[in-house]
C-alpha cells in the first residue's frame, strides 16, 4: 500500500485537488461530493488525500475516514487497471451471479475486494446496478456486460484485456 502511495503523481494530483478544495472551501456538507471528485482524480482515497480533504474542508481526519468507510463506493485501496464490479442484486443472484464470483475469483486468483499483485485486475461485488433485465451483469471499468455465465464472464474479460 505504501508503495502505491509513492506511485501517486503528486505534482499532477495536487493542483487538481487544490482547485477542487478551493471550490468547496470549508463547506463541510460537500464532503461526499469532494470525495467523489477526489476519487475520480486520484483513483482511490489514500490517507494523504484524506488529510488534504480534511484540512481543506475543515473536518477531522477521523470524520473523513468515518464517512469513507461508511460508503462502499469509496475505496482506500487502489483499483486494478481493469476494475471488475460484479452485480449481486437479487435478479443477478437468482440467475447465477454467485457461480460467476467463484469462477472469476479462481480465474484471477484473488478474493473479491482485492487487486491482483500485478495491479492489473481488481474485483468488487456491488449492489444492484439497475440492469436487472440483463442479469447477471458486471461492469469492467464502468462498461456494462450482461447476460453472463461463468464462461462468458471469463471470455469477456479475456477479450477486453486482449484489445
Amino acid at each position: 500500500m505504501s508503495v502505491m502511495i509513492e506511485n501517486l503523481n503528486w505534482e499532477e494530483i495536487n493542483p487538481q485537488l487544490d482547485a477542487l478544495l478551493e471550490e468547496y472551501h470549508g463547506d463541510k456538507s460537500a464532503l461526499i461530493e469532494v470525495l467523489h471528485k477526489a476519487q475520480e482524480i486520484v483513483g482511490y482515497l489514500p490517507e494523504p488525500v484524506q488529510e488534504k480533504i480534511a484540512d481543506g474542508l475543515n473536518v477531522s481526519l477521523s470524520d473523513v475516514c468515518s464517512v469513507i468507510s461508511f460508503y462502499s463506493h469509496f475505496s482506500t485501496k487502489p483499483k486494478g487497471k481493469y476494475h471488475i464490479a460484479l452485480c449481486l442484486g437479487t435478479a443477478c443472484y437468482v440467475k447465477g451471479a454467485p457461480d460467476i464470483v467463484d469462477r472469476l475469483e479462481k480465474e484471477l486468483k484473488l478474493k473479491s475486494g482485492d487487486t491482483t499483485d500485478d495491479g492489473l485486475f481488481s474485483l468488487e461485488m456491488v449492489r444492484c446496478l439497475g440492469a436487472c433485465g440483463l442479469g447477471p451483469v458486471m461492469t469492467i471499468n464502468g462498461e456494462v456486460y450482461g447476460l453472463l455465465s461463468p464462461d462468458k464472464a471469463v471470455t469477456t474479460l479475456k477479450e477486453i484485456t486482449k484489445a
Partner: protein
Amino acid sequence: MKQINLCIDGKEVQVPAGTTILAAAEVAGKKIPTLCFLKDINEIGACRVCLVEVEGARTLSASCVTPVSEGMKVHTNSPKVRRARRLQVELLLSDHEMTCPTCIRNGNCELQQVAEDLGIRDIRFTGGKKNSAPVDRSTPSIIRDPQKCILCRRCVSVCTATQTVEAIAATNRGFDTVIAPANGRSLADSPCVKCGQCVLVCPTGALIEREYVEEVWEALGDPTKHVVVQTAPATRVAIGEEFGYDPGSINTGQMVAGLRALGFDKVFDTDFTADLTILEEGNELLQRLNNGGTLPMITSCSPGWINFIEFFYGDELDHLSTCKSPQQMFGALVKSYYAEKYDLNPDDIICVSIMPCTAKKFEAGRTEMSVTGNTPDVDYVLTTRELARMIKQAGLNFNELPEEEYDAPLGISTGAGVIFGATGGVMEAALRTVYEVVVEEELPSLDFEFARGLEGVKEAEVDLKGTKVKVAIAHGLSNARRLLDQIKDGTSPYHFIEVMCCPGGCIGGGGQPIPTNTEIRQKRIDATYQADRDMPLRKSHENPAVTTLYEEYLGKPLGEKSHHLLHTHYTKRRRK
C-alpha cells in the same frame, strides 16, 4: 411552557412539551434501563434498550429520544417491551467479550447491570464477534478494547462535542462498525489528548485507564526504594465515592491514612506545588503585563489541554504559561530539593502521584520532564480509581481509617491549592495572590464568585489598582476552543485565561470515579470550596513551606532555579 398530559403504566403525569418519555417516566416513578443515552451529550436512540410501547404506534419507541405527546399511553413493562429489551441485551452480550471477572469494570459495568436488571440468564445465540480489532495499548493513558465495545457512541459524542478533539469516530458500517481513530491508527497516532472523558462515559470496559497499580506495588515492596506520593487537589473530594460515600464527601484524612497504610514512605500533597504554581504563574503574568509579553496568558496545569493546544493550535503556544503543572513541579522538586534536603539519591526515589486524570500519565512520560535525566520526575501516575483499587486490594477498610495529616514539608498547602481541582480554581487562586501582590492590600473577600460554577466560559474584569485585567475561564475543550479561536483571529479581549481540559475541571477528570456526571461534578465542586473554607490558610503566598522553599532553594519566583526546575516549553504537533 406548554404542559403535556400523558399516561405511563396507568399513571397520569404532566410534563413540559419536549420532554422525552424517559424523563416523563422518571416523573412517574418508573426507571427505564438505558445504555447509549447520556443526557445532553448522546441522545441517539441507538442501543434500543430503553424501548417502550406507545399505544397505537407500529413499533416500539426508544424512550430516550421520543418526545411525549398529548394523551399518549405508554407501557414501560409490557411483555412486548420486556421481550424486545431482552433481545437487545442478549444481542449485545453475544457480541461482547465477556471476561467479566477479570474486567476492570466488573461490578461497575452498565451492561452487566442492565443484564441483571432484565434478569437475563442465558443468551440464545452464539456467533461471530465484531471484526477482531486488537486491543490498543499505544498510550500510557488509555486502553481501547473494541471487543468490549457496544457501540453506544457516548465516547464519540464526548470526544466530538464536549472536547472537539474527534480522535475517534465510528468507522466502517453495519456489523463491522468499530469506534476507532482514522484509518486503523492507534490512539497514540491520533489527535487524542488523553483526557479520558471517553473512559468516564464508557458503559463497559471498552475504554479504560492504563493501570500502573502493579508497578507501584512492586516499588512499595522494594526496600531499596524511597517511595513518595502526591495527591492531586481533586482526588480528596471524589475518592470517597469509590467506598460508598455520597458524592461531595471530603475524605482527605482517610486518603492520607490509606496511603500511609499502603506503605508509602512519605505522603505529600500536590496542593503544595499548586501554591507554588500560583507564585510562579502569578509573577509570570505580572511580568507579561508589565513587559508587553504575549497576552492573553493561558494556564498550563492541565495536561489534556496542553495536548490539545499543541495539536490544534500549534501557532498559539506562546500564550501558554511556561509553568509546569503542579504534578511536574512536585516531581522535579522531589528529585532535587527533597532529595538534597534529605540526602537521598534521586534515582532511588520513586515518585507516585494520585491524579483525577489520565492525561497526567502521559504528561509524566514527556521526555523533558526529568530533572535527573535518568528517571522521570514522576514515576507512576495512578488515577483516583486505581488508588481506590489498591486500598481494596490491601484489605483496608477505608471507611474505618483515621484521618491523618500529610507529611511536611511537601504536604503543606493552602485553600488556594485545593481549589485548583475545580474550574475557575486556578484563576481564583491566582487572583488571591496577584491582587495582594499588586494592590498590596488584603483582599476584602477571598471568594471570586464569577470564577465558580459550571458555565462553559466565565469572564470578568478585575481591577488591579487601576489596571483593568480581563480574565476568562473555560473548562471542557469545546469551550477552550471558543477562546482559542478568538486568539487566533486576534479578537481576544483577555489578559489571562484559565483552561481546564475536563468539564468541571479536574474534579471531573478522566481518572475520577465512575459515574461522573453534571450533578456529581457540582457536588465535588461544592466540596472543593468547602475544603478551601476549612483551610486555615487560603492564599498561596501565605504557604510557609513555599516561602521556605524559596528561601532555602529556589531563590525567587522566575529565578534561574525556578526556570530550570519549574518551567518548560511546548511543541507544535501534527498528524504523523
